[in-house]
Every structure is written in C-alpha cells, then in structure tokens.
C-alpha cells in the first residue's frame, strides 16, 4: 500500500471545500469495501483519502415529493432494514440484501456501490430500472445526472474531481420491480449476471417497462429496445421471451474466470424472463 494522507470531515461544506482544492488527487471513502482492497493492491494510489462517513446529512432514506432520497453513505444493511424501501422499492431492498454478507452490508454504502462503477454492482441495475438520478454536489452548485448517463465505463463515472455523489433520488415507482441475481454461491459472491425490471401493468397490458442488466457490459445498462417491445402490449410468455432475447442482444459480456460470455447471455436471458414474468404477475416461469 502506498502512503496517503487521510482526512475526515463532518460537514458537506468541508467535504466540498476539500474536493475543490484536492479533488483530482483524492479518493472518497464511503465504506471502503472496494477502496481498501484497491489501495492495498495499489490499483488506486491517491495522495489523499477523504472519509465522508461522518457527514450525518448524507445518511438515511427519506420520502418527499413523490420521490425517495437516499443519502450516499446509507449502508446496504440500512437499505435492507428500511421500511420505506420495503413499501415503495422492494427490488432495491432485494438487491441490497444480495450484496456480500452481513459484514460487507454493514460497511458498504449505496454511494460507494454507485461511484465505484463496477459493471457487476448489484444496486446499479436496480437503480437504473427505477430511473434513479445521481445528485452531484460541488462548491459550484448541484448537478442532477440520470443514472443511465452516470456510468461511463468500468470504474468511470460522470463525477467531476471536485464533485461529491451526495444523494440518489428515485421517483416513487408506480410499477412492480424485481431484481434477480446469479452468483457463484449463495452469499459473498459478485454477480455473474443480474437483472432488474420494473413494470407498470394494467391488467395484462404493460403500460411502462424498465429493463436493466448488470455484469454483461462495461457498465450496468438499460435496454430501451427490449422495453419498447413491451409497452402497450399484452404480456405473455412469448413476448417475454422476445424481450429477453432483444435485451441480451444489446449486451456485450466478456469471458472471465467468473463465467464465460455465452453463459452470461444465456443465464441473463433466463433471469430476465423470470423477472419479467414475476413483475407482470404471470408466475415465476
């Protein structure tokens, strides 16, 4: 591990002042489950590490004006235990519950999971399916970036060096969300592939559809082509199958030691079919 200077701030304004001065040489610590291994392995060698975990204002899940606002240092464990999420966004709760194990969920945060921009991040695909926005703050002001424009590549985001990911904003979903993940074991496993959908149904007719995939492209992705197949259509197994095929055609998975690309495509299509069927109320298979 290379040497770095460690700073802790207690207020958002102190954090933004620090980033305005030293942002380009700084890594933000928002839990550390990704950052600490990266520092150890010298994948990341910042001059400064800025701990934002003591900024109370960035913590917690709030509901206001038909939207959820989740502070960036809210832990996965808090998401799992949130009554607001259980009521309004159960798919995000499912995704949070699938991350790592209890120790990691107590430590890792939603902001860290998003800003780390792993293609396999479990919260990212769900947040994409919920049309979430990233609230980015700097001394210059606040930018709100749709999450689908936030991820630029593995580890790359739209965050400027002087900006802090302060909040995730989610418009209250009108439809039913489902998250499904295939890992290599039942816990403590990154996604081989994950899918998140949100369907607004009127009887068997789909009014709105959001489909997102994780671990099948350089970033978590939305699948507009697949979504458009569903909108204003009667949902049935055949349509769901077509939609899954269309979504996987939009993905560009890689071979790695976790799984081969062909397997990610096939398993992803199956998970997507199941998630769509569940969200449409057609049963699991």
């Amino acid at each position: 591990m290379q040497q770095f200077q460690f700073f802790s701030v207690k207020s958002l304004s102190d954090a933004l002042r620090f980033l305005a001065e030293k942002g380009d040489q700084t890594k933000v610590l928002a839990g550390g489950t990704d950052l600490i291994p990266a520092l150890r392995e010298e994948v990341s060698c910042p001059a400064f590490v800025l701990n934002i975990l003591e900024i109370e204002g960035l913590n917690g899940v709030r509901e206001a004006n038909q939207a959820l606002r989740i502070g960036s240092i809210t832990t996965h464990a808090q998401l799992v235990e949130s009554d607001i999420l259980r009521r309004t966004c159960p798919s995000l709760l499912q995704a949070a519950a699938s991350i790592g194990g209890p120790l990691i969920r107590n430590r890792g945060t939603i902001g860290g999971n998003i800003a780390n921009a792993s293609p396999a991040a479990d919260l990212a695909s769900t947040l994409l399916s919920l049309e979430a926005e990233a609230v980015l703050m700097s001394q210059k002001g606040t930018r709100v970036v749709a999450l689908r424009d936030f991820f630029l590549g593995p580890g790359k985001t739209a965050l400027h060096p002087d900006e802090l990911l302060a909040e995730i904003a989610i418009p209250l979903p009108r439809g039913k969300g489902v998250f499904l993940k295939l890992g290599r074991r039942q816990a403590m496993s990154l996604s081989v592939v994950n899918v998140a959908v949100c369907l607004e149904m009127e009887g068997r007719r789909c009014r709105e559809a959001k489909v997102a995939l994780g671990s099948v492209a350089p970033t978590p992705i939305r699948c507009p082509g697949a979504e458009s197949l569903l909108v204003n259509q009667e949902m049935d197994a055949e349509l769901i199958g077509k939609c899954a095929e269309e979504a996987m055609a939009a993905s560009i998975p890689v071979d790695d030691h976790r799984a081969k690309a062909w397997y990610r495509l096939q398993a992803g299509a199956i998970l997507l079919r199941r998630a769509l069927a569940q969200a449409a109320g057609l049963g699991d298979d």
Partner: protein
Amino acid sequence: MKKRGVGVGSMFYGLGYGFSRQDIASATIEVCEDGSVIVRSGEVDFGQGSDTILCQITAEELGIPYDSIQMLTADTLTTPNAGPTSASRVTYVTGMAMLKAARAMKKNLQTVAEGILGQTDLLFGDEKVYSLSHPEKIISFKALAKAAHLGGLPMVETAWHDITTQDVDPETAQGDAYSAYAYATQLAEVEVDTETGEVQVLRIVTATDAGKAINPMNVEGQIEGGVAMGLGYALTEEIALEGGRLKTPFLGEYMIPTSLDVPPVETHIVEVPVSTGPYGAKGVGEPASIPTGPAILNAIADALGVRVTELPAKPENLLRLIREQEREEKKLPPG
C-alpha cells in the same frame, strides 16, 4: 425447469501413511505430587479437537475429571514428537500412544494402591481408587499420587506407538498397505435448474465408521465440516490458471461454500471397533469429505441423465452438458 436427483458416494480410506512410510506418535503423562496430571504430546490441534480426545483418553483411564488435566501440546521445546496432524491419524495413532502412556501410569499407581489397600481388584473412578469386592477399601487419587511420589515409583510415563506397515509387493502392488481402513457412505439430494445449470444441494446424509466415537459431537463436527469441503470441491472451488499464471490469487475469488450454501447434514455414526485404535477408534477427518463430491455428482447424473466429468460442476459446464443432451435427443426420430 427444476429436476431433482439422489446420488450415493462411498469410500474406503487407509488411515495414516501406510506403504512402509514411518508413522509414529508419542505422548507423555506426568502425575504430580498434588494429584494433578500433565499430558505432553507434539500433536497439533488446529481446531479438529485432538487435545480434547487425548484429554478424554487420559481422564477415562485414570478415573479423574477431564478438567483436572493440563494439556501441553504442539511445543517442540517441551513435547515429544507425535508426527503430523494429517492422514486422519491423530486419534488413531497418537490416541493409542496416549492410551499406552496412561495405562503404564495406571499400572504404577495400581502397584502403590495394592500395597496400601491390600486388594488387587481395583477400580479407578470418581477421583478415587477402590476395591471391587471391598468398596470400603478406598483411597483418593490425590492421596494415592502423594503416596506414589513418596514411594519413589516413576510418576512420568512416555509411550511410543508405531503403526508403520510393510510395503506392498513392488512387482504386483499386492499387500496390506495400511494398518486399518475407514469406511463412509453419503447420500446427496440435489435440485438442478435446467435453464441456468445451477445446482442446489438440498440434503446430505452420512454414515461413517468411526470405529468408536470417543467424542460423538466432535465426530459430527468433523463430518459436517468435511461435507462442506466436499461440497465446495464438487460445485464451486476452482483455481483458474492461464498460461501457468494464477488468475485467482485471492481467497475472495476462491469460492468455498458459505453457511447459506451448506444444506442440512444428517450424520449416522457407525461403530465397528478396530483392534489397533484406542477403544477401537479410527480417524474420521478426511473420510468425511471424500464421498461428498461423488454423491453430489451422482445425484446430478440422476437428475439430468448426464454425467459431469470436470470439476467444479459449475453452472456453465452443466448447462453445456444439458444443451448437448437436448441436441442429441432432437436428432433421434420421434416416437
């Protein structure tokens, strides 16, 4: 679709090193003047419970409480060589050395007690030594230890146990390579997702010949742990190499089963004593993990009708086999 299957795995396993490779152990027992007992052995207890077993053997022989014995183990400065903790040999070999040392000590104490009590039919129990025919002839273990020290009899005994076998015939490879064999059978029940290739192990049932379970809960623990290891070996644990380079150098990428992956394990302990082990006991450590993989793979074959020949049986390998099988079936004419 989800398909279920049941499979059986059976094994036998040579205890210790066999094939004329040196296999020795030793243990020392000391009875102090105040009646306290110290045991020394080079055996390493890295969690499997060998200190517990050696202590139980000593307590059993001398009729004293388990917690009155001080165990000094795995210290090259103060403990005699007992050989490695491996090959499921510790209870079987070192346990026997412990039993021999304890019995030698008991003999010395018996000689002293016979002189004091005037009886030869003596029993050691409840921290006392007493005559079977005249129970009123009794002396406490503590008083006996003091008398033995005053009487000048050896109150330190060391035993050496050697199970080194003959080698097999170099021409025919025939012969008795090991001094004893352990036996175990396991059943696995699995559910395979035929669309993703995921395998969920629903239940493992084990039957293990422990010879004599000196500590039944310990034996159960060894078997449950062994099953978890065998399950990882069958389904998830993999070392990926590329051009001779390790692609998975971190334990974070080495998928041992978590508590959510291990199914309920039912253990049945079978006791067929072996004359060469303490109280008939055999080793159970490695035998616990050996049948698990075969049982799981047989269960997968039972569920799918295809046989996995590459480990681990990860979802993508299974899905490939399932697809191949589907293609084969389509080639056949209908009816």
